[in-house]
Structures are given as structure tokens and as C-alpha cells.
């Protein structure tokens, strides 16, 4: 049997050993088998994929190199624009809309020879932690289909965990890549803010959003990060530097690295089985030559509140454009104002409405200073605290999620408990730093546990080195 990781697939396709078409058909067969049960995809793009695979094969036949992801099937979260292919954000309000452009990350994947197999399910507009807030029904966890895959990028996490594609793209505003990666037992990366273009990513919280990869291996995640990363003049928040070289550093080991385990994220609220796996990971790093210490980041406890003010405030503005005037759903009414109101009432789900209302309130006259401005102060405070921490350690370690995957419906009626799923991940978005989740064994219920690694801005090389070491330690 041939290895199923992206790097192996690309190598065999580039060498002519396997055809991209064969690789694709294998994956489509796997999708046909389990997709009805899991619902990872909002849309399968088989025809598009077959054409792309054929093009890759023709390039190989003519002696061209199709690129580092030659013939690698990828699944794309359905809030990332794909030219001529419906992009719904799992919302009724965008039903029928087909973007006239590809997101920069999609362009870069295609240019590297990757083959898109479909658009994956998500919590509506990426607002949620379980993929249950999709207008098109929930996605199920491939490890245990009675449980959620996490969210909001649950479809992309499930697609990789189920072997539908070796790699996929998600977006991470407060943990939407890392948390589902942890719950599904795959690798998920949120890169440094500004290293991966947001052009073509449908905005949720613009100052927090980043696109990043899911993969079964650390090396695949590194490669996809490098392919999609790098400066894009079409995104003003894109930094000038290219994406750091991470792939060549994966074998460097962790000897001499300083690892800090975040006290505030491993104590109260974290289930004992998850805490035990984080300790095991820390021990493995110590065994490999790293120095491990506990480190306290007191302001982390303000993170959740600050996050839900900033993210909702930006969302309330970002989602204002869905009004029925230009595209997507329109509910007809006698006047323009009523048309907009009815369209938004029918087009958005409850969680989206809840967040639009929260954000609108946070920005309102008289409340701005008490809420939004205070949240900005917390962001500065957190940044200072992290900067100080990184003077004594190279990477930080915590659980990715305080718990393993929970059953479908378990938290649907309790938004606050659902929001707490993000407590470990949101701080990285608030400070703009890179973070990733690496699978590290199972919890008491045999569900996967993810360990979160955090690093300073552009600290991806070190972060990936540590991730690769954790991966090795499990073999």
C-alpha cells in the first residue's frame, strides 16, 4: 500500500509512479463510502477535480513539474472563495452565490498542483465550535460519529481525519482550525497574523482571521503552510516577509529549547485526561532535551471576554453587507428597508444573529469605551505579557481544547459553555501569534487529545520543530 500523506503522494505523482487521476479516484471512493454519514462537505467538486487531476497528469507526461503538491487532493473550507464554485459559509444568506474569483490561498494551492475535491462544512460564517451551527446540517466526528468534530472548520478537520483528502484548509478566528484538529486527531495550524493572505476569505473578525492547513502529519502541515503563505499585495495586512522556512527545520530536534507550560490553561476547566496528555507531551519534550517549566500568563483569563467583544464587533460590521441588495438570498418586501430586514432575519441562523447583536451593542455610542476599547486594552496587555514570556521560553504549551470531542447537541443550548471550548486558543488570535494543535494520544473516552503549541510572531520554525518532536515521540 502506498503512503497517503501529501508529500508522498506529490513525490509519486511528480515521478510518474502514480497518476493524479488514480490518487483522486481513490479519495473519491473513500468519500463516497463515508461522506453520507459524516457530512464533511457542503459541495463535492468531482468534475472540477477530475479536470484538475488530468491537467496535472498531462503536465507530468509533457515533462513539466506540476509543483510541490502535484496531484494532492485538498478540501477547502466553504468560507474561502472559489471561482465559479458556490461559496456559502454554511449560511442560507449566501445560497446560490458563486464568487467570480479564487482566494489567494486557493490560487496558490492550484499553482502548486493541488486538486480541490470539495467545499467543507462549517459553523455558519465560522461562528461556533462544533459545526452544528451550519444551515446545512452538522458534520460528525470520523473517530466517533455520535460526537462533534469541533468547529468552526469541522468539515475540513473531518475530511482529513476520514482520509477524504490528506490536507485541507480552514480558517481560525479564535481556534477554528486548532480546536477541530484536536477533536478529530489531526494537525491544525493557525499561522502568524499577516503571513497568509486573507484575500478571498469571507471575513468574520478581520483582525483575528487567518487561513491555515489541516494535515495528518506535521510535515504536510508545514509544506501546505509554505505553499499558501507569503506576501500578497491584495491584503493590506499581509506582512512583507515571505512565510518562514519550516520544512527544512523539522528534524532539528528540541535539545536546548525552552518550553513553558501555561499554568492558567492547564488547571481548572481542563479535564484530567486532557491535562494528563499535556503533561505527557511536556515530559516527552524534556526527554528529548528541552527544558520545561511552568509559566503564568495571568491576563489569559481576560482573553475570552476580550475576544467575544472584538470578534463580534468586527463581525457585526463585516456581515452588514448581506442585505439582499446585490447577491445571495433576497426576501421580497414592499420597501428596501423591510426587504433587508426580512432577508437578514431569514438568512442568518441564531448564533450569527446573537453575535451581530453583541457586536453592535459593543460598538454603540456610550458603550464603546466600556467594551470595545477595553477589549483593545486587553489585547495590548496580552501582547505585553506574551512578549515578556517569550523572553524566558521559546514555545508555550497548553491543551488545545479543555475537553475531548463532546456528543452532538451536548452544548447547543448553552452558548457560554460552547464559548469556553475556545478558551485555550483565542489568545493567539488576540495577539496575532502562530499556534498549532498536534494530536497526542487519547483521553478517557478514546477520543483524540490535541496539544497546543504557541510561539512568538514568525516563530513557526521553532513551533514546527517542537511539533515534529511530539509526533516522533509517539512512534
Amino acid at each position: 500500500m502506498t503512503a497517503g500523506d501529501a508529500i508522498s503522494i506529490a513525490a509519486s505523482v511528480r515521478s510518474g509512479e502514480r497518476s493524479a487521476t488514480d490518487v483522486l479516484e481513490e479519495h473519491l471512493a473513500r468519500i463516497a463510502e463515508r461522506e453520507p454519514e459524516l457530512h464533511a462537505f457542503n459541495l463535492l467538486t468531482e468534475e472540477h477535480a477530475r479536470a484538475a487531476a488530468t491537467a496535472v497528469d498531462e503536465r507530468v507526461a509533457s515533462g513539466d513539474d506540476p509543483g510541490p503538491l502535484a496531484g494532492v487532493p485538498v478540501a477547502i473550507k466553504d468560507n474561502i472563495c472559489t471561482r465559479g464554485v458556490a461559496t456559502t459559509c454554511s449560511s442560507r444568506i449566501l445560497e446560490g452565490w458563486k464568487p467570480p474569483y479564487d482566494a489567494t490561498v486557493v490560487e496558490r494551492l492550484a499553482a502548486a498542483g493541488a486538486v480541490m475535491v470539495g467545499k467543507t462544512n462549517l459553523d455558519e460564517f465560522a461562528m461556533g465550535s462544533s459545526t452544528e451551527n451550519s444551515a446545512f446540517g452538522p458534520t460528525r466526528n470520523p473517530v466517533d460519529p455520535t460526537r462533534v468534530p469541533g468547529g468552526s472548520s469541522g468539515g475540513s478537520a473531518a475530511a482529513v481525519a476520514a482520509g477524504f483528502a490528506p490536507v485541507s484548509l480552514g480558517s481560525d478566528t479564535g481556534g477554528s482550525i486548532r480546536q477541530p484538529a484536536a477533536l478529530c486527531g489531526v494537525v491544525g495550524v493557525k499561522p502568524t497574523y499577516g503571513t497568509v493572505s486573507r484575500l478571498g476569505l469571507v471575513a468574520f473578525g478581520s483582525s483575528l482571521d487567518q487561513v491555515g492547513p489541516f494535515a495528518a502529519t506535521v510535515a504536510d502541515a508545514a509544506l501546505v503552510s509554505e505553499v499558501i503563505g507569503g506576501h500578497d499585495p491584495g491584503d493590506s495586512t499581509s506582512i512583507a516577509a515571505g512565510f518562514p522556512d519550516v520544512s527544512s527545520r523539522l528534524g532539528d530536534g528540541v535539545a536546548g529549547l525552552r518550553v513553558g507550560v501555561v499554568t492558567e490553561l492547564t488547571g481548572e476547566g481542563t479535564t484530567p485526561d486532557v491535562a494528563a496528555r499535556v503533561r505527557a507531551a511536556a515530559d516527552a519534550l524534556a526527554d528529548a532535551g528541552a527544558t520545561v517549566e511552568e509559566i503564568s500568563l495571568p491576563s489569559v483569563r481576560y482573553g475570552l471576554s476580550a475576544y467575544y467583544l472584538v470578534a463580534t464587533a468586527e463581525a457585526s460590521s463585516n456581515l452588514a453587507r448581506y442585505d439582499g441588495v446585490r447577491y445571495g438570498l433576497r426576501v421580497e418586501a414592499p420597501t428596501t428597508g423591510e426587504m433587508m430586514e426580512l432577508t437578514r432575519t431569514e438568512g442568518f441562523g441564531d448564533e450569527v444573529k446573537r453575535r451581530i447583536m453583541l457586536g453592535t451593542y459593543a460598538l454603540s455610542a456610550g458603550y464603546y469605551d466600556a467594551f470595545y476599547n477595553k477589549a483593545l486594552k486587553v489585547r495590548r496587555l496580552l501582547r505585553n505579557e506574551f512578549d515578556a514570556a517569550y523572553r524566558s521560553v521559546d514555545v508555550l504549551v497548553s491543551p488545545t481544547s479543555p475537553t475531548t470531542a463532546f456528543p452532538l447537541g451536548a452544548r447547543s443550548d448553552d452558548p457560554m459553555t460552547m464559548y469556553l471550548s475556545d478558551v485555550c486558543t483565542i489568545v493567539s488570535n488576540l495577539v496575532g501569534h502562530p499556534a498549532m494543535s498536534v494530536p497526542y494520544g487519547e483521553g478517557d473516552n478514546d477520543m483524540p487529545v490535541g496539544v497546543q503549541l504557541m510561539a512568538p510572531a514568525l516563530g513557526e520554525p521553532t513551533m514546527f520543530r517542537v511539533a515534529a518532536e511530539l509526533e516522533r515521540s509517539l512512534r
Partner: protein
Amino acid sequence: MSPTPPMSPTQPTSTTVDLDVWEIVIGLEVHTELATATKLFSSAPNHFGGEANTNIDPLTLGLPGSLPVLNEQAVELAIRVGLALNCTVQRSTFARKNYFYPDQSKNYQISQFDLPINVDGSLELPDGKVVGIERAHLEEDTGKTTHVGGGGRIHDAQHSLVDYNRAGVPLLEIVGRPDLRSADEARAYVSELRSVLVAVGASDGKMEEGSLRVDCNVSVRRRGEEEFGTRCEIKNINSLRSLGRAVDYEAARQVDLITAGDRVEQQTRHWNEDEGRTTLLRSKEGSDDYRYFPEPDLVVLDPGSEWIERVRAELPMLPADRRHRLVEQCGAGVEQAALVVERGLDELCLAAVAAGADATRTLTHAEHNLSDGRSVELDPGSFAALVKMELDGSLSATQAKTVLAELVAHGGDPTEIAAVHGFEAMDSSELDGLIDALISNHPDEWQRFCDGDGKVTGFFVGQVMKATQGKADGKVVTGLLRDRAG
């Protein structure tokens, strides 16, 4: 039919305000479209007119996933205007102004709020008055909505159409301080501002195409009072004439309210040009909460001193400096300098004077005989030669005017043009004979002239002109007559 907002409960009874008792306070907000090739945040063309929804792209339509990228040319023009208005150009940020309206595709406008690019400037009017400029900031324009049916109003239209061609066009909003005190001053301010904007190449200054839009804040107070009165903002002013009328109407309305014992309520009012009055659009209590917050899709705009200084070095001479130069170098009067600069004839006059023309005569021609737009093309050398011919008596004032008109229309050599017209220098011996004959033929009139009756001067000059077919110089003739009268 044009929209007719609800009538104001109190209509003014007086048409003019007693300016001995009342002082009118005016502050203007002028929006100017910047003359860039593309929009403020995208590469869609910035072009007036055209078929609806042709100058658009994903950002203009607010499509999901589109992002703004700041137009460098718009920033350069904003800096140019800022420097021309003596502003401090500073590190600035963008913010989102949130409100729902179909002509605004994102349902928020990207504008500058707490940190605008230009602050604390001034504009000198032709009469020397200096008006403060609070700020001049960048923002994007909206599209245009047309309401079909129901009288063209959004409230009861059958349907509405939106044209996004204008959406995203770069605007500079120039906020003046409340330093203006009359309709005339308000007009002079807008006129001067327009000259500056055109001079620095920031705008074509066309009010009728909406390149320049004026919102006018008016309040009144009794003379001697220090506190400003409550102001009303007037929108829909589409010409300088409307601006003057709107100010006068609004000031009178407010004075009437106060005189009647009412108070002025802070309102936004609509100028109705046909009816010559302002009507209520909305009162402050009903104003929107725009929920401004920093635009997360854009980074801080910090042009840096190098860029600013380069723009400063490249600035053309501004109208006020050009007026000063004309006064200093040619002895022009204040109003004369204003007119000549407004016509763009100052360079021509200076060049003609440099070529030896008499300054006073040159300016007089520019003021009275060069209203034709083509006059700027006049060759300074020919202009100077003409002025010299006039001054040395080879051409009369009337003849000079004729030759000048021809120079403007077709160019050429003034000497040749004069020859073609048969304008030849009349030497005074010819005139002497004519005048002596006139005196002897009209003894009564001559007696009156000698008695100091100025009215008959015209008679004699007219007769000489008739006899010489206009070749004689009226001033010379008058001189000869005076000589004879002793």
C-alpha cells in the same frame, strides 16, 4: 417631482437679517472627489458618467472576501491639498462608519475618524481674511440610488435602482472652522478652495458633476455674544449661488425663531433651490449611531517626512501667493489681482511686464479686455509690444482693444494687425488741423468747453474720431483741446 421633506413649522417673515444686531456664523464642509485614475481602495476606474455599474469590481460591490488596498495616488493628492491648505500632515488611521443604505455596498463607509491625514490648516481669501481648516480627511464615496415610482422617494417607491460607479471614488472631506460671517464670505471661501484644489491638480472642481459638494453649517447670535448659537446643517447645495441664498434664508429663519421667542433646534436641513428655502431632513435626536471603530482591513497610514517634503517641493504656486506676487511686482489692486489670478492671466501679465510693458496698462487690459478663456494662450511678447504701441501713441485705446481681441482670437504680430486695420499713428500735426477746423466751425460749443463745461468734451472727441475713423487717441485729443483752451 423632487422630494419634499416635511415643512418647517415656522417660516421666516423677513428676508434679510439686520446685521447691525445679528451675526451669522458659517462653517463649511466641502467634499471633493480626488482626480485619481482608480478608486480609493480598488483598481476599478474612477470615471464620471458611463453606463450604470460598469466602473465596478468585487470590492466596489462589497463581494464576500474582497479587501481594500489604499490608492497611493489618492494619498498623494490628499497630502497635496493638505499642504496647500497649510495643514499638518500626520500619521493617520481609517475607521468604519456603519450604517445601512443600499448605495453603500458594504453597509459601512471607510473613512478617517479620530486621526485624519490633514489637520489644523488655513485658507486665505482674496480679501485677506484667513479661514481656519479643522481637518481634511480621506473617505470613500457612495453609489447613487434612483427610486422608481412613488414620486421618486425611497418611502413609497415601486422599486429602487443602484448604480455603483461612484461607490468607492476617493473623497477628501475638508472641514472648515466656523470663521465665515456672511453669504459672500461663504461663497468666496468655496471659490478660493476650488481654485486651490484645481491648482494642485486634486480635483476638476466641477460642482455640477458633484466633484465638489458643500454642506453648510449656519447659526446666528446677537452681536457681541461669545457663545455660538445652535447650528443647522444644510445639504443639497449645488452651486455658489445656492450657497449664498441658502445661508441668507437659513439665517433669517433662525433669527425669526429667536425673535419670536422660540429656540433653534439642531437639525439637518435640505435646501430646496426651486422654492428658495430649507426644509427639515432630520433633527439631532434622530441621528444615526455610526458605531465607528478602527478599520481592521487597513494598516496605519504614515506617509513619512520624505514623502511629505517631496510633495511640498512639487507644489505649484497657490492662488493667494500669485495674488500677492501681482500686487507686489505689478502694483495691482487687491480686487484686480484676484480677478487676474482667477482668470489665470497673472503669468501672462508678469511676462509681458518683464518684456517691457507698462504694468498698469497691462493689468487694465487683463481686467477689462481679456475675459475670453483663450487669453491665457496669448503670447506675452506680442502683448507687451501692443501695450508699448498704445503707450507711445501709435495706437489709440480703442484701436489697442481691437488689436488685442484679434491677438487673442488668431495670434499674430500686433504691428501687422494694426496695419491691416489701417490703424496708423496719427501725428499731432494732422490732429491740430482737424481740431482747429472744428473749433472754428462750432464756436458756441468751444465757448462752453472753455467755460469748463466738461459735457462738450465728448462732442469734440467724437467729431475727431468720426473724421479719423477712430484712429485718433481720445486722450491725446482731449489734451490738445485743453492746450488750446489755455
